[in-house]
């Protein structure tokens, strides 16, 4: 009878990136955050911003869970009237970025050393103080985390991250392979 029931899937646990287009109205973020909390879904990261259409915002979530949890997250999001479309981006070929601002301790004699690392990671120094530097880094989660580890020995004073944002690659480019991991 197996042919009748192709929907039965194995439960795989993993990290998923979900993208939701929502109506740009007051309270939508609170609604979605409240729904996720009240149903006990665990969100690793959440980023919100306007899109090319001023009436729509895009929310990007990173959810950790098995396929059934993910299925519920997606369906419960879709059930919210102000949510226009939900996509499990991680099931497709996509680009993801995380933006970080980090302030590290940096006496003048170490400036060039740190700037070299920033260059390798294609970051930018955006503010220079007498004893510290503020650096902007964007990229995949792995890259951003690798940079944090590199900065730790110097002394991290403060850091902030935007949370993951992601978009699916256009289909014409899909054949060009997976995302480049060059830093």
């Amino acid at each position, binding site marked *: 009878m197996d042919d009748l029931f192709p929907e039965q899937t194995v439960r795989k646990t993993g990290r998923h990136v979900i993208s939701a287009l929502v109506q740009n109205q007051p309270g939508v973020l609170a609604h979605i955050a409240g*729904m996720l909390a009240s149903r006990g879904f665990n969100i690793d990261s959440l980023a919100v911003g306007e899109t090319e259409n001023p009436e729509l915002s895009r929310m990007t979530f990173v959810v950790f869970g098995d396929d059934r949890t993910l299925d519920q997250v997606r369906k419960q999001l879709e059930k919210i009237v102000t949510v226009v479309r939900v996509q499990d981006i991680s099931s497709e070929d996509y680009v993801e970025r995380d933006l970080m601002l980090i302030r590290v301790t940096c006496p003048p004699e170490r400036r060039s050393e740190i700037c070299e690392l920033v260059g390798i990671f294609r970051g930018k120094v955006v503010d220079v103080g007498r004893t510290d530097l503020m650096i902007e880094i964007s990229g995949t989660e792995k890259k951003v985390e690798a940079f944090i580890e590199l900065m730790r020995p110097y002394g991290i004073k403060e850091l902030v991250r935007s949370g993951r944002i992601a978009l699916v690659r256009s289909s014409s480019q899909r054949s060009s392979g997976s995302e480049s991991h060059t830093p």
Partner: protein
Amino acid sequence: MTGAEVLVRALIRHGVDTVFAYPGGASMPIHQALVRHSDRIRTVLPRHEQGGAFAAEGYARATGKPGVVVSTSGPGATNLVTGIADAKMDSVPLIAITGQVPTSVIGTDAFQETPTVEVCRAITKHHYLVTRAEDLTRVVKEAFYVATTGRPGPVLIDVPKDVQLTAVVPDWDPPMNLPGYNPYREASSRDIRRIAEAIRRARRPIIYAGGGIISSGASPDLLEFVEKTRIPVALTLMGLGAVPGTHYLCLGLLGMHGSVYANYAINEADLILAFGVRFDDRVTGKLSEFAKHAVIVHVDIDPSEIHKNKPAHIGVVSDVKFVLQELNKIVQPGDYTDWLRQIDQWREAEPLKFEDRQDCIMPQAVVRELWELTKGEKTIISVGVGQHQMWVAQHYKFMKPRTWLSSSGLGAMGFGLPAAIGAQVAKPDHLVIDVDGDGSFLMNVQELATAFCEKLPVKVIILNNQHLGMVVQWEDRFFEGRRAHTYLGPIDRPEAVGKGGAQIEEPYPDFVRIANGFGIPARQIVRRDQLRPALEEMLSHPGPYLVDVLVPYQEHVLPMIPSGATVRDIITE
């Protein structure tokens, strides 16, 4: 034209003939507008906003049309919360309109300000805070559309007082702005073929049908399907009335207090056709053991219900009426002789039973007598929550959809009387009876005033055992019978600590005098031979009437599958 005027005219344009509305500072302009249109829209004044919300639900459940309740801001709005949550759980189309403090003071903790939308977000299907009077017609249009389509539910419209007072030139037919809302779902022909194939292969199929059948108006299609295929059907609490309760293939209620034979049949089935249901824990018990050997076909209009609690082998997102109509075109009668014979054996061995004692009035006997006296009539029964609710569900045979009004998912005590009032407003030619418990009844007892003052001839039967019977039952079964605040009389009586005698002495409160105080005739009965004459007297009385029936508190609702257990753990005595 003021915003309030626009709002009321918009309601009329959406076919609203009745609102349940309790005024207050922030909703006065709406009431002024309602008075101006009293020739076209009836305003029923409940005596508590919760009563208003339940009455609007009673109206909606009895008709399928959205019920409308109006309250003021702050406490008026928070008093609606239980009713809104109830409508969400049971998928009842409800429009809740709340007054709000003027936009200029929102967020300042103004007098009678609560962030109503914030409070109600998780318990509504959708919600609006209207900040411009020009938006009112669009918001009302969207609210009715969202409340009544797809899986129905409550929609909240919060209207600040200045918006109610702003002069505006309305656009009566504005475009809706709901880009993410696509409620119409129909199964593909492939899905239909897969379901039909699963039916063809089954030897022991059963239908597990619920509120979705009633919401989608699919009762005639379900009955046709049942009679065509000869597949028996078990019903959820929300599904009672979906097929006639006396039908041979109707096994009645399943789940925690369902019949033994319905639960055995579900357990032994090789195919479960789950139509418009949500695999609630009160139905399934322990999920992993529920229908363990069966192929599960699950049809629901809400995609999030498919695979939510129990993974389905065939999960179909669709209006269940469409699926049944398509199946009815192709299904053939199956040969289920052995299966039906097996179910008959279970039914004979373990029927729904109780001891109809003559030395007192058994609660089940009241329900059976009521059924005998009203079965030919246009009757609507509402209930509170607890033992009495289950006894009605078990022993009254609901023949038609929308004749059984029960707070099923939320389990909100105090539902019975206001729901009966709402149903009576909607269906003046029907006999509407609230069969209540003494605990539940007291929770919205003030609505007796609504029944009297609005000239609504609802009947009330209280199955009065002086206790919170269902909690007592659980105390008896799972807490060694220790009474913990489950006796509803004075705390110095022996019953308060579980040392009462067999008989109820000096029942408290005096429901007859309470009813009389509200202007409603009433009588109390204690002897079995008083039962039928009292019910007959109640039924022949033209106005509202209350019968207080003293019943033994020792009686348990049986059978019972304990919470989280399986059919093997069923308690039958």
